[in-house]
């Protein structure tokens, strides 16, 4: 299953909805799609929604860490939500728990940032 990426911007927050499989092969399109929006718009925060993501390995962690470093430069916040048990396990190993905000769903994430 390939990766499909749905992006939209609300205020200064980029919403990233993923479905399918995020691995090394599909990570390039995700990185490029996000970066091209970052170049065009004032984006401060990002919300990643993994609800329909059926697979992610450490290449996905690499992409998230890369985006985290980007938003951190503008003092923004990166939120991930809708983690299934498998993605949660990998995020635990990565230590991303310590630097990212994790919420249950997009609504909670929006409330956290005040873009609801």
């Amino acid at each position, binding site marked *: 299953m390939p990766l499909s990426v749905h992006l939209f911007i609300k205020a200064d927050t980029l919403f990233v909805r993923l479905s399918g499989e995020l691995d*090394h092969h599909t990570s390039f399109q995700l990185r490029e799609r996000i970066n091209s929006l970052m170049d065009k718009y004032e984006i401060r925060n990002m919300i990643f929604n993994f609800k329909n993501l059926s697979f992610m390995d450490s*290449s996905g962690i690499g992409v998230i860490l890369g985006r985290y470093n980007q938003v951190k430069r503008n003092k923004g916040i990166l939120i991930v939500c809708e983690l299934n048990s*498998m993605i949660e396990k990998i995020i635990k190993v990565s230590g991303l728990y310590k630097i990212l905000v994790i919420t249950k769903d997009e609504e909670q994430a929006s409330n956290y940032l005040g873009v609801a």
Partner: protein
Amino acid sequence: MKQKRDNYAEIIFDAISENEAFARIIVAGFIMPLDPTIDQLNELKTIVSEAVTNCIIHGYENRGGKIKLTLESYHNEVTITVVDYGKGIEDLNRAKELFYTSKPEEERSGMGLTIMEIFSDEFHIHSKMGEGTIIKIKKNLDYTKEKYA
């Protein structure tokens, strides 16, 4: 418990990133008769995905080559071997460190080998400079079921 028949498969494929998903599908298909839990299935898919990705980007440095994937099941234990004939690993202890990557500029997280080790019951790695790398993992599907029950 019903005795599962032993099984063996090997496949050689190109070291191109399209084959990361292909390798995951092969593993999923191979272990289906063993009735894995969803977690066991995902863990084995992740292990193979990490190993094949490493062959492509580290072993062959994105220049292509061949990867050999071998799958064996004996009773309820699965053994998976992933082999490349690429550059090899100079310092195995450093490579195995969590977060160590030789390619930080490519946004690698340095977690692949650690994940393979955590998700398997046995993890072995052999490498020789200029000859390639062999990853071998074992996972007992019954044992893990009991462990999480």
